[in-house]
């Protein structure tokens, strides 16, 4: 393993000092002269025709500077997915119909928040109510109210189907007929939300030169710019998204949000800056939450536990518009087929419209839901075969070099090693067996352990499909790193600096990062699908290599040495066997300017995954190569259940992770901790409760994210399957999303191990656990109840 100075070290965050001293600037902190307070009028109805909007009273209110409705809009639709098969489907401000409670109908900009609120109350809207439907399976029935026509390529006569993913290989019926055991189960993952600490916020400022400057809490500036520009009818170059820090996103800030369009439109109308900030209630009632998913899973196995075939049907509740629903049904397939070998498969996924808030990706985007299903069922199968949970997973886990059904290579897939390490560290097999024995010993408090497994992929093609990075030398030898990457808290700026520091032998303090500005920084793939470290990281590496190459060339000439005999350290280049022969970067740059026609030493790097593939795989058929980067993990959770109340505590979670090569181990651990906490909320008590399409628990009091006293103890095991080598492309794998999934599955299995209660629907509320315990007492087989 190469000796590294910066990469692979738990270097302190670049943006740490400003954050810890309260000086980091978030969108809500932006203040501009003349800035107005913007607010959005939202539909109180889940499904209605807009008959008439009268803004005249509101317009007459003193202090109101602009009001916009659909008549001010170009009415160009947008969507999370915008392809030939799935064209944009939502107006950025409602035109003639609303399809969920909270849909945006009008915007006002006023001199203060009180006036803006009053203006909203003065806008008169006449609605014609339409019948509404909230359950996706109800929405598919022939007599369901139509929210949108079903997708024309969906052949079945289901209503309200926004999209379908369908794929198969082998012969699944034959596989079932040859199976020793076939199980069929249904799993339901509920509606929960990101609960990022920073609410949605935007400041839009349109000036008289026709330029729109935007500060916005978002996960990807270039995607946001494209969608804003398109819907507003502005050239991309006229829309500038400037950098702000982002207070967490977890997938919830990718989409173009209608209020962002509305803030921009208001500003364009009155030529003053407009700030819209959501209240927390508005985040719950108006923003986008995660994806509920039903998974119907039929699995056939051989006597020795080898999976012979799986048949899967998923149904996603996408809300009033497609949102990312058509993506999750595709991704769910990916999370199904990546960790374990499945020789025969039939998969169908439906994304269904309901009159609820539009859904969007939430950390894992299909992995939590799918792994919960697959790993719960695998444990059930193992029990029927009298195998232990580790054994059956070792049997089915993919090995390094496996070729996946979509022709991707699993490369250095470390799952087996993860399984072995995590079970060894936790004493899993012994604990599991012991808990089984103690189930019926009459004690009130029960403990149990369970395993969960996940594989995630990174950096797949999604607009803008590539990252570029510029490494610019300043003439004193310090470095400016220019990147479009957004730091949401995951540490993007730090990781990129580490890579550049390593490649260029420049200390971290001598690297300044200029990021996330569509005008002054380079295009970036965006901080989602966990691609940033890999895609932008490799781009940064290349940029640094190029810049370094120029410096080395100049040094080789000056020192009259072969370029391979040179070494760099601490902003100096010297001859390896004669270190007194050296040149500082400062002098090398000056020489470059002198000798190389004014070349000030700039390095430019680009990177794209799947460099020969024109596009991402088909969302409809899954055909197509996806990524070269599959991570894997195995997690063990230990839980404790109070059988008198049904209350479960997650005591600890141990994660063995194959994330390739951790650029910054401390940041990786932070990601694991945060995801375990998020998973804990998902399984125990986080749920967005809806009543006829309206969220009725829109606060942190009633939407229960874990507090410090609920903290889960965590432990980590690095399974390092890649290497970082200077001058070479590196493979690192994702760390931002996959650990939620494994934790949920592990807790589900641990609950069963502790109590014998098998729950197939999250959250595992205490009354559900108690109900399960009662049923066991009555000695009837616990069925999964929904």
């Amino acid at each position: 393993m190469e000796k590294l100075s910066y990469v692979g070290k738990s270097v302190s965050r670049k943006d740490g000092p400003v954050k810890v001293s309260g000086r980091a600037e978030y969108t809500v902190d932006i203040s501009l002269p003349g800035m107005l307070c913007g607010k959005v009028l939202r539909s109180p109805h889940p499904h209605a025709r807009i008959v008439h909007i009268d803004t005249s009273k509101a317009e007459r209110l003193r202090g109101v500077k602009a009001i916009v409705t659909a008549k001010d809009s170009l009415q160009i639709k947008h969507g999370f997915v915008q392809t030939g098969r799935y064209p944009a489907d939502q107006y950025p401000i409602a035109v003639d119909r609303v399809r969920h409670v909270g849909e945006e109908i009008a915007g006002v900009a006023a001199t203060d928040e009180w006036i803006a609120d009053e203006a909203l109350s003065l806008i008169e809207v006449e609605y014609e109510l339409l019948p509404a439907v909230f359950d996706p399976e109800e929405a598919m029935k022939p007599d369901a109210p139509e929210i949108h026509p079903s997708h024309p390529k969906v052949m079945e006569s289901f209503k309200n189907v926004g999209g379908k993913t369908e794929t198969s290989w082998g012969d699944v019926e034959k596989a079932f007929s040859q199976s020793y055991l076939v199980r069929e189960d249904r799993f339901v993952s509920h509606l929960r939300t990101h609960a990022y600490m920073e609410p949605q916020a935007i400041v839009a400022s349109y000036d008289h030169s026709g330029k729109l400057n935007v500060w916005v809490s978002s996960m990807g500036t270039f995607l946001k710019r494209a969608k804003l520009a398109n819907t507003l009818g502005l050239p991309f170059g006229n829309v500038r998204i400037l950098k702000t820090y982002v207070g967490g996103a977890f997938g919830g800030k990718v989409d173009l949000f209608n209020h962002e369009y509305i803030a921009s439109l208001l500003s364009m109308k009155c030529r003053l800056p407009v700030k819209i900030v959501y209240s927390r209630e508005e985040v719950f009632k108006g923003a986008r939450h995660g994806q509920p998913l039903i998974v119907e899973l039929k699995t056939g196995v051989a006597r020795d536990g080898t999976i012979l075939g799986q048949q899967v049907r998923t149904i996603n509740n996408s809300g009033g518009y497609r949102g990312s629903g058509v993506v999750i049904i595709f991704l769910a397939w990916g999370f199904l087929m990546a960790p374990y070998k499945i020789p025969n498969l039939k998969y169908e996924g439906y994304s269904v419209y309901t009159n609820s808030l539009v859904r969007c990706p939430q950390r894992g985007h299909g992995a939590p839901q799918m792994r919960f299903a697959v790993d719960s069922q695998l444990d059930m199968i193992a029990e029927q075969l009298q195998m232990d949970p580790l054994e059956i997973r070792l049997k089915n886990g993919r090995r390094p070099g496996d070729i996946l059904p979509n022709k991707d290579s699993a490369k250095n897939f470390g799952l087996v090693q993860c399984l072995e390490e995590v079970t060894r560290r936790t004493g899993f097999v012994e604990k599991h067996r012991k808990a089984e024995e103690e189930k019926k010993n009459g004690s009130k408090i029960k403990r149990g352990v369970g395993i969960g497994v996940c594989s995630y992929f990174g950096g797949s093609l999604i607009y803008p499909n590539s990252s570029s990075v510029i490494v610019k030398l300043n003439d004193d030898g310090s470095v400016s790193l220019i990147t479009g990457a957004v730091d949401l808290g995951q540490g993007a700026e730090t990781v990129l600096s580490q890579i550049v520091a390593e490649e260029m032998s420049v200390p971290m303090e001598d690297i300044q990062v200029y990021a996330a500005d569509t005008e002054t920084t380079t295009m970036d793939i965006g901080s989602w699908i966990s691609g940033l470290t890999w895609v932008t990281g490799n781009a940064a590496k290349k940029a640094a290599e190029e810049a370094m190459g120029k410096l080395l060339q100049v040094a080789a000439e000056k020192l009259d040495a072969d370029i391979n005999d040179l070494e760099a350290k601490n902003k100096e280049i010297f001859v390896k066997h004669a270190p007194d022969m050296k040149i500082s970067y400062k002098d090398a740059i000056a020489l470059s300017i002198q000798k190389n026609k004014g070349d000030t030493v700039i390095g430019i790097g680009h990177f794209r995954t799947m460099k020969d593939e024109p596009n991402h795989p088909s969302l409809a058929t899954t055909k197509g190569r996806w990524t070269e980067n599959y991570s894997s993990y195995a997690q063990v959770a230990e839980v404790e259940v109070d059988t008198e109340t049904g209350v479960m505590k997650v005591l600890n979670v141990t994660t063995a992770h194959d994330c390739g090569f951790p650029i910054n181990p401390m940041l990786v651990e932070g990601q694991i901790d945060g995801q375990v906490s998020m998973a804990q909320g998902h399984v125990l008590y986080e749920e967005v409760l809806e009543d006829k399409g309206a969220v009725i628990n829109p606060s942190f009091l009633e939407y229960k994210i874990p507090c410090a006293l609920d903290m889960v103890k965590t432990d980590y095991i690095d399974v390092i399957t890649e290497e970082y080598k200077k001058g070479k492309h590196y493979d690192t794998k994702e760390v931002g999303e996959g650990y939620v999934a494994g934790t949920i599955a592990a807790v589900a299995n641990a609950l069963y191990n502790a109590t014998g209660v098998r729950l197939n629907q999250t959250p595992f509320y205490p009354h559900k656990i108690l109900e399960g315990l009662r049923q066991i007492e009555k000695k009837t087989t616990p069925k999964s109840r929904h």
Partner: protein
Amino acid sequence: MRLPYFELFEPATVPELLTILKREQVRVLAGGTDIMPLMRFGLLQPAKLVSLRNLPELKGVERRGKALHIGATTTLAEIAGSPIIEKDAPLLHEAALAVAAPPIRNVATIGGNVFQNSRCLFYNQSAAWRRERQPCLKAGGEVCLAVPGSRKCFSVYQGDIAPALIAAGAKVRIEAKKKGGSREVPVEDLFTGRGVQPLSLRSGEMATHFVIPILQDTGSGYAKFRLRSAIDYPLAGAAAFVTARKGTIASARLVLSAAGPAPVIVPLDGVAAGKRSGEIDLDAIARAIPKNLPLVNNHILPASYRREMLSVFAKRAMKTALDRV
């Protein structure tokens, strides 16, 4: 979200406060932890507030003879940290520590916690979101939204402090600027039993002190059920207080929180008194809980489960009290 405009009075003495209460239509502002969110949501829109901040007479814990006098604006942090209360009113000490989280306790007052509004998922939302829906009964409308068509409000009183005070036999001192304006009543008399207006004082009245009798040979326990380990209001709560004489139980009180629009005093006649603590049948205690508690599915866990947890936590509280006596 912004607070609506209001005028603020800041009296410096209790007589000044009482004059304002008599003269004006005002709401009282103590720690603000209950009233401020309600104002932000537009559920309360007082044009005038009167602050209790500058009234040192309403603060503090004092032993006077055989009773503890606790000023109504004493913060829960001060109560939780008071060695006098820990010794002479341990049930109150335990209940205070169970409330919310430390930063809230730094400003929340004992009076404010007792006088908190009842809660329901359908009520505790901003007025803006209900503009075109019917307001619920509690919000001034005609029907309950939690139980469609009902004309009864099912909001739940979720205070931790009041049940503890009631179980310990506490009284509240009330003052008003009028003839015969001073009175002292048991804390349970503050509750109307109606969700729409769960607490009442007569016009111009102000609760100034809580008075807790200091007794010997007591045991107590406060058991709170909530989903998270801090922050949350109780989904079920029980305060138990027993006294002993010559080795047997002399009196036993059990008061429930989150059991309806008011704390519920569980009638324990014959179940505990006269027995040794080890002989008391905890299941009988649980069976004494009224069967018809007005619980419906208007909180995060179903009513049937919460009803069951009231029994479980009543037993836990009582067991703790009996173990400690």
